[in-house]
């Protein structure tokens, strides 16, 4: 018996490709940005980020880009996150909790449907990179 068959090789390739997609900039179905200014962190943004990491891991999803950015300027409504489904306008969510972000992840990020009741509005501030 050979140690590795052609099928095994293909499996290793597919798996590692998924795990390293972010290095080569593949296609993403959505981008989620958690605002991580001091205000955001104080209000619990880390919990939001951890919840999102857990969602990605448990569902083995590799085509959602998870990033963070600084304070969005609306410190009173933190924690905040911006969801941008490919091809659609970004949506800002405010006053987040772990429960809310899980719902948003399921309905908006995966399902493509904006969760109106948690949303602040459509659009996003510009970043310089």
């Amino acid at each position, binding site marked *: *018996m*050979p*140690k*590795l*068959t*052609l099928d*095994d*090789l293909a*499996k*290793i*390739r597919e*798996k*590692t*490709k*998924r*795990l*390293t997609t*972010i*290095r*080569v*900039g593949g296609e993403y179905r959505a981008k989620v*940005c*958690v*605002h*991580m*200014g*001091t205000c955001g*962190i104080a209000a619990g943004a*880390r919990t939001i*980020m*951890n919840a999102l*990491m857990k969602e*990605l*891991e448990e569902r*083995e*999803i*590799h085509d959602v*880009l*998870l*990033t*963070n*950015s*600084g304070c969005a300027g609306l410190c009173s409504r933190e924690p905040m996150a911006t969801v941008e489904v490919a091809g659609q306008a970004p949506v800002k969510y405010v006053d987040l909790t772990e429960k809310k972000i899980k719902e948003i992840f399921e309905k908006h990020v995966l399902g493509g449907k904006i969760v109106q009741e948690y949303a602040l509005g459509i659009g996003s501030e510009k970043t310089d*990179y």
Partner: protein
Amino acid sequence: MAEMAKEKAYRIHLMVCAGTGCVSNNAFGIKAALEREVKKQGLENEVLIVTTGCNGFCERGPLLVVQPGSIFYQQLTEKDIPHLVEEHFLKGRPVKKLMYTPPKEKTPVPVLSDIDFFKKQVLIALRNRGLIDPEKIDEYIARDGYKAVAKALTEMAPEQVITEIANSGLRGRGGAGFPTGLKWQMVRNAPASNGSLKYLICNGDEGDPGAFMDRSILEADPHSVIEGMVIGARAVGASEGFVYVRNEYPLAIKRMNIAIEQARDYGLLGNNILGTGFDFDIKIVRGAGAFVCGEETALIASVEGRLGEPRTRPPYPAQSGLWEKPTLINNVETWANVPIIIDRGAKWYASIGTLTSKGTKVFSLVGKINNTGLVEVPMGIALREIIYDIGGGIPGGKEFKAVQTGGPSGGCIPKEQLDLPIDYESLTAAGSMMGSGGMVVMDEDTCMVDVARYFLTFTKDESCGKCTPCREGTKAMLDIITRITEGKGTEEDLTLLEDMAHAVKDSSLCGLGKTAPNPVLTTLRYFRNEYEAHIRDRKCPAHVCRQLNVYTIDENRCLTVGKGCDLCRRNCASDAIRGAKNEAHRIVQEKCIKCGVCYDVCNFGAVKVD
């Protein structure tokens, strides 16, 4: 095979450059600091730290590229790391002051692909640079690694593999540019005596001063070389291969060893590769660092355990090489090109480059250049583009004078030929050669006679001594040039030098002697006026050859600007300076040994050199 572990995804990958350049600049210290800070911020489940091979922009090391987004951080110190981790990875605010700002500009360029150094590069041999951990075979496989070997072993006949390589137009990247497909065909056709043994060798004996292409490939992507060799072995029918690497390349040897072990574990080396019944394995042979061992017959002698000396050809190694068996020997970069040619096809490869030189070439760009580093460019690119667009031009606003390609065997190409398109033929026509890809840039402060002397000193020392023209010829040429740099040359010396250069070129046994006169011949061809200045005027125009310099002190400037600071007199080793504090100083020429110390120490520009 081993059971697949649960997939662990990270939202940020930190690609820490761990090529030899960055490692010597504390890359591992940076990596440890990153690990520490990431843990401190509780980000260890979100941020993955990866060590990669050489990123290429060595001038700016230690380097870190943040993915996604390819944010390029440079010249990092351990002190920068806590701030960087907190700001960028925790709070999402990239740190501008650690980014690359082009000279003379004020705004940093955050993204790697927007930086001029990277813009014009085309990566084929270096296709995985900065993207994988060279010590993880799975990451190589994810970049379509070992896909070509599967194709070559299961879908293609050996003859087809050779045809594909021949049609791609790939030529040897070690220097001479022999068509790779033709070489493979010769080895395949060679009648194998006693038990049909044939061998494969990867030539990693990189000896040119300032060259580090092979080392970087071995360090950054060892599996690409292994995969190329398995394909080559299958094509020519070899069952054993050797990677010859200099012992001065410990990191390359370490990573190659790890890669070979991993490939064996996966059954990509050894018996019955991928269940196809094909057997092939690789061993590493460490070379002791003799320049001549880059020559294939000397290298073979060294692998056999004999003194590394060349022999006459024919027979060529393809007919009778290692232990007198047909042997396929290619350079590291050539091997690294093979898998992607098989994977993407000859047509794709042949669409890049010029009529006679296909694909890309890796160069190590060094010397008087702003962006020192490793670059891969398509054949046919102009020298000017490499030096000014990628290399960022000459530091300190100095004038470009010449570029030396091909190492000690190459030649110096002057300013007038800056628009020369790089390929095997054009470089040879200019009196130089492609060589393995060293590119040493020289500015106006370089004396071309001194450059010829430097390279000749190297080849004289490295000449193995087996044949007379090289052994005696390099020494005789060096004697003449040294005489010229000391102001003792005559007009006849130039003719003698030229005659001797041609004689050594024509009659030496191996490539070392055949090419050693190139630096002499090209400097004579393009910079004859500099030789003449040394001989007729007893002057070195660049003031490099100190024996020809005359040092004087502008007494007025010394007194009025420097207030007779006395620094020069106190530093003079030969007691040749007269004067005292608050007085004008002067040099007694008879006592001056022309060491130039007074010139170097004077803070007021009062010491003149002519």
